[in-house]
């Protein structure tokens, strides 16, 4: 429901996004905005378990309609000053759709997930917090 609301808000606020592939399917996920980029992502499997590998299905696009790329996905725990013990690998599925494999949160708490995105020579880091209990 939250994703539907967010997607609706995004589509109303940015009419140029008609082609932006924010629909992840399965009716759930998160949407992250910046001045230039829009990104939607969801875990696979949907429920992230402490100590279990997971992937992120990521769709990214620009507000201007230019093609966007996902360069890297990582995560860290700011309170504990450490990152993941694993390095995610990326697979491009075309049209701004990506799959990041090999993530693993080895501790409960707040994880800050970072997404390095780019359109042309310009890159930007988007972040989103996931609280794992």
């Amino acid at each position, binding site marked *: 429901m939250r994703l539907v609301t967010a997607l609706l808000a995004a589509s109303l606020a940015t009419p140029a996004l008609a082609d932006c592939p924010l629909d992840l399917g399965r009716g759930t996920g998160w949407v992250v905005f910046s001045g230039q980029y829009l990104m939607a992502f969801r875990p696979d499997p949907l429920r992230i378990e402490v*100590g279990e*590998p997971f992937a992120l299905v990521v769709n990214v696009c620009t507000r201007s309609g230019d093609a966007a790329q996902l360069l890297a996905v990582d995560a860290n725990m700011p309170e504990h*000053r450490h990152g993941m013990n694993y*390095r995610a*690998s990326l697979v491009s599925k075309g049209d701004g759709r990506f799959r990041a494999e090999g993530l693993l949160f*080895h501790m409960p708490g707040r994880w800050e997930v970072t997404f390095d995105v780019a359109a042309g020579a310009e890159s930007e880091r988007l972040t989103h917090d996931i609280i794992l209990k």
Partner: protein
Amino acid sequence: MRGLLLSLLFLVAVLTAGLIGVQAQTLLDWSPEEIRTIGHHGPWPPPPVRDPSNRVSGTAAGIALGRHLFEEPRLSGDGRMNCASCHQAGREWSDGLARGQGRTELDRRTPSLWNIGYLHWFGWDGAGDSLWAQSIRPLLDPREMNGGPTRAAELLRGDAALACGYEKAFGTKPGADDERLLVDTAKALAAFQATLVSPRTPFDDFRDALVAGNRETASRYPLAAQRGLRLFIGEANCNLCHLGPRFTSGEFGDIGIPFFVGPGMVDPGRLGGLQRLADSPFNLLGRYNDDATGDNTRRTRHVRRLHSNFGEFRVPGLRQVGRAGPFMHNGSLATLEDVVRHYSDVSPDRLHSDGTPLVRPLGLTVEQSGDLVAFLRSLDAQPPPRAAPAPLCP
């Protein structure tokens, strides 16, 4: 007069028993959040585990062969040492020594095998990404069993009972490929070790009752253990690493234990383990992984080798912990009280420079230290007796 005295004594006895009962059967005011957190440490036991990289994992014939091989001294170079020499059933599948004793004294403590089938990284440094790969190391290590690369194969081919057990487990007679038979020996050993699941404990009874809302049963759990548990999941943050039903993340940490193993010699811990993992022909990326899907290789493919891995060691599970000292990867702490004192007094200066601020001196009071120890001891239970193994091929 005598009747009056007896009546008075009886009355005193009844009142005393009642008071003791009231004092001993108390339940802390656990919050819903605390109950949810405690619930994550169970239920116990978990379902049996099966390793898809090992085709005899979870099979009766594989387990039976593995149990016989576990006690087989002919796997060692001098015919005098077997797996059970160090992993002793009567010592919580460890040896009670500060450092393992092979053909020489080793640098690290012999880890307990309880619940080892549920791990994803094996050895104190995680150099093994499967239980069978880890089981190969002591077979070959010149400081341990020193069996050499062909001994297991010669034994499986030459001993009628073991050859029969092999055929039952793997479906073929032992072949000519020595390395393949070494791996299969380790896979049978792993199948057996994965059956070593620790018994239910007083903590499990408490956890189940608390989650079910059964206050009467939950209140039988000693107050000191309850206070220790509250510290464990609260102020002390122990459960950030010692999490889940096995009380471990299965990952690695630097907790300020010195890593010098001799003059000018250090144990690099996880940093060295990751290098050995990458160099091993027996890792899950190699040809001996029985899982054709490759799903079980995700950790191995994505694990990072970081400078901060230096001096990190695997977070051990805590079930049966009070019965399996000495403690830490190098056996440097003799008692549970010493372990709690370490966390209470640890100097931040002893932590690796890139170390996480998760470990900090807790500054526990004497009562708090006692409570933590009481909680840890509630994770212990007497294992049931084990029947002798049946013959492989009667």
